[in-house]
């Protein structure tokens, strides 16, 4: 084996992929060629230096760390959905009825500014239902009666 042939086999030699008979020829060449021996030895030392970067003896906490992070991401996603829902509810709230006489009381404005629509207050209190109970109160009464019916039946 000459120096060119050795170079052809050097990667396999360093990578432990040489067939035994070829390795023997390489070793013979290295024994008598100082230049090739120096090259091979220095590269072997480099591989050894890389191998001194030890692999972990175990992988502690990797799964835990990742899963803890996933839990945190899940909580954040839940909070985001919750906030989005609240925001959507605010945006899609019932439109404000035109105030009587084109104006609005200071109290109604304060309620509106606080996110509570004056129309809702009237609905809840029954004030908006002319001549009788508000739809909310009527529905509550029907619901209560149905509960009573269910209990009787």
């Amino acid at each position, binding site marked *: 084996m000459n120096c060119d042939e050795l170079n052809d086999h050097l990667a*396999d030699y*360093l990578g432990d992929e040489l067939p035994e008979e070829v390795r023997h020829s390489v070793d013979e060449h290295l024994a008598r060629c100082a230049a090739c021996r120096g090259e091979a030895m220095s*590269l072997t030392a480099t591989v050894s*230096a*890389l191998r*001194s*970067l*030890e*692999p972990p003896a175990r992988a502690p906490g990797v*799964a835990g760390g990742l899963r803890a992070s996933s839990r945190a991401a899940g909580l954040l996603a839940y909070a985001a959905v919750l906030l989005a829902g609240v925001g959507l509810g605010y945006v899609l709230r019932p439109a404000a009825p035109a105030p009587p006489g084109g104006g609005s009381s200071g109290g109604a404005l304060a309620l509106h500014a606080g996110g509570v629509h004056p129309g809702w207050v009237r609905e809840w209190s029954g004030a908006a239902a002319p001549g009788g109970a508000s739809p909310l109160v009527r529905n509550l009464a029907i619901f209560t009666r149905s509960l009573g019916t269910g209990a009787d039946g």
Partner: protein
Amino acid sequence: MRLDPLFESHRAQVYAWAYRILQREHDAQDVTQDVYLRWWHSRSNGAALTSPAAWLRRVTVNRALDVLRERHRDPQDDFRLAPSGVGRCDGTAPTAGARAEERERRERVSRALGGISERQREVVVAKVFDGLTFAAIAAQMNLSVPTVKTHYLRGLAALRDALHAERVT
């Protein structure tokens, strides 16, 4: 919440790549987590899906080298070094000075790895750390076997020169 099964099957390897370069558990965990996030964002990326092992190896090693560079820039970081597992052949515990010296030597090796081309680094890491054959590396990286061998030899030679300049080998 379950991890992406494809990442899950490579998670231990990702951690091992990061650990070999950084030699610290908590840094390797951070890199593993960071790589998972990148994987999650890139999972529709063709390169990531065509050869997940090659993609993860490249991203993990590059990220670990970034962390190493940041560590090197922070002089306070020396005070947070984890104890090294270096022992002596006579079974006695190494001195603090010997441990620090060994840690520094390993960091120089890792830093030298960051100084060679990305292709060379991928091949060297796959060969030396993972013990893959040249044929397997060629298949993973979609290269010919002779090209992989050339990257390996050139990468090792560049590393040797860098380490020699730092008097590591």
